[in-house]
């Protein structure tokens, strides 16, 4: 018997993972949630048919979405994380002892419950006492906040489905308002490679650029995401992600990472010409 999970990366491209067992499959109010145990990638979390994380490569995504802003402003004390029900981003944040509070806003409680049960590798730190979880719409949560956070991380799904409103101009504008005067916004920024992902990426960049004075893009290689080439957005009111990096300070934290380092940090903002062109035309 062979059991395969397949995700359509485009209408004409498929990506398949050989599955040992299906550990969970539920339909929440918002989406379908599946967890597979696979031979190559370990546990795989799938929402509405799209891979959100695998145990084997989630470190790349979660390290890159947290340590980049933390190295630019190592003084960050209060963080808002939107999405992130799997807990991976929270896990990385809890490694900083000086972070005082992490508010996490996830629309779908079932994602959190299922990850706690099946994927402790990412979900284990959700019970950290600094973490406050709010189960509501991210856009709704953020619009009531003003001058409150040092960092907002948007760890969202794709801009189709329940995460759609986390790619809108009104969302980025309300994030701007919720951030302190030296605040940073980092977001999952889709991929530049396939056409539909690239269009979403362009729109997101154009909207962020219209709200924040600094809006840059950095990249990472994530094997299980479409094309493997994935982008993150770094937007801020004040800091430049390269000129303002506090390398010594960050390295003095002695956080052991598998992917991120401060050299890679600087390099990750060097992006290919075709991506530059897409961003210029956004």
């Amino acid at each position, binding site marked *: 018997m062979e059991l395969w999970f397949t995700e359509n990366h485009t209408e004409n491209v498929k990506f398949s993972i050989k599955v040992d067992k299906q550990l969970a499959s539920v339909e929440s109010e918002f989406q379908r949630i599946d967890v597979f145990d696979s031979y190559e990638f370990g546990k795989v979390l799938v929402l509405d048919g799209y891979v959100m994380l695998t145990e084997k490569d989630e470190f790349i995504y979660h390290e890159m979405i947290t340590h980049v802003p933390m190295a630019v402003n190592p003084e960050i004390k209060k963080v808002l994380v939107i999405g992130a029900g799997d807990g991976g981003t929270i896990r990385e944040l809890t490694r900083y002892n000086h972070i005082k509070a992490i508010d996490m806003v996830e629309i779908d409680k079932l994602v959190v419950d299922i990850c706690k049960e099946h994927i402790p590798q990412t979900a284990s730190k959700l019970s950290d006492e600094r973490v406050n979880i709010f189960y509501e719409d991210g856009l709704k949560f953020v*619009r009531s906040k003003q001058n409150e956070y040092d960092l907002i991380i948007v760890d969202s799904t794709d801009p189709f489905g329940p995460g759609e*409103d986390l790619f*809108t*101009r*009104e969302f980025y504008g*309300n994030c701007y308002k919720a951030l302190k005067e030296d605040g940073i916004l980092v977001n999952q920024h889709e991929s530049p490679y396939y056409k539909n992902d690239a269009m979403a990426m362009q729109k997101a960049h154009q909207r962020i650029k219209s709200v924040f004075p600094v809006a840059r893009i950095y990249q990472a290689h994530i094997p299980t995401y479409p094309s493997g080439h994935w982008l993150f957005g770094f937007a801020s009111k004040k800091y430049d992600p390269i000129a303002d990096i506090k390398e010594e300070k960050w390295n003095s934290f002695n956080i052991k990472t598998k992917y991120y380092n401060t050299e890679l940090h600087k390099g990750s903002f060097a992006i290919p010409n075709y991506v530059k062109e897409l961003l210029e035309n956004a």
Partner: protein
Amino acid sequence: MDQNRAPIFEALEKQRTDRIVHFDVPGHKGGRGNKELTAFLGEKCLKVDVNSMKSVDNLNHPVSVIKDALDLAAEAFGAKSCFFMVNGTTAAVQAMVMSACKAGDKIIMPRNVHRSAINALVICGAIPVYVNPGINHRLGIALGMSVSEIEKAVGENPDAKAILVNNPTYYGICSDLRKIVEIGHRHNMLVLVDEAHGTHFYFGENMPVSAMTAGADMASVSMHKTGGSLTQSSILLCGQNVNVDYVRQIINLTQTTSASYLLLSSLDIARKNLSLNGKEIFRKAVQLSNYARDEINHLGGYYAFSKEIIDHDAVYDFDVTKLAINTRDLGLAGIEVYDILRDDYGIQVEFGDLGNILAIISAGDREMEIERLISALFEIKRLYAKDSTGMYDHNYINPDVVYTPQRAFYSSKRAVPIKESNGKISCEFVMAYPPGIPILAPGERITVEIIDYITYAKEKGSLLMGTQDMRVENIYVMEE
């Protein structure tokens, strides 16, 4: 009758599966003759775009499946009979006016009617007796008709043939329909209701009273607005006092003889859906609308009004599904907020006038879209709010009616620049669209106030129309 049935829909389904060979119109023959259109709209859609034939009846003379669908709809709306309209509620309003009035007959109506009502007067030559609607100065909008104003108009014009009521208004404001029906019937006048924005009154719970329930003689309901049918489809409802065979003749004077079965079947299916699920659909719409209103009022700067404006007179009741938001305190015209929402945030609302925007909340809305609207309004306030002095504060000017609309429309006329037209009598309409309520109608004297209003509305970005001059800079006035 069984409201689970949808006779037009069922006949079309049968027609489609029977695989009839067509040597009749339409010439695309089930889509084969227009491949690009078929790819765009879908083969299923093109296959039911058929002409009247025995199996699917004829709208101009309904005897089988259309008649059955009309009977079901009449029952669902609590009417004696009804007509399906394929040229919008505009055609329904015109059919009401033309059924009630001949040339020279008087009809009592508020001046803040939709252009379709005054258009009907241009066509049939009836004489309008305008009742001043109440005005809410805080919001700058025209309200409903107060009973005392109607009694006054009826007393002064006992020979009038009908009273036309606009209920609810675009903003959701309702008049005392039961009382108006009583006054009209006491004086042998028909009571006609432009109920374009009130389809849900027939199906939702705790809604303002509907025209048929209030005993009105005819009502035009825009099924396509909040009822879920296709754009341009509408229903004309008739009560007990109406000669429906005469109404059909009136409708057939101007109605197409090739009525679209896409529109007709959409009415049939929408009626079925409302009958079966209407309560739940509008419960959800009310809940979303109330939620949005509370949140928006909480933001400050905006005023999303609701039942607190009820005064039991010109605002007898309020339709809470309407999410009308006053923007004046932000120093922004409604039309400016409308433009920013669409251009910067990708959010399209129904209309913006000088002081308000209107969002339509219906069966198709979800929490996420409501959150987006609220958040975008928050952002617009943060980014664009300014001092509100100098804002134009109203959208209604009492008209000075000199001639009937028909006389003025067909009189000898000349074009003059609007800016130089003070004191002249207009032969044309000028209106912002939407909402399509005339600022100026044929036969009315142009004043400095009207010229200033038109100039201000244009500056703020309203889409003005109605004059022959597409740029709305010149206007035809009567030769004197």
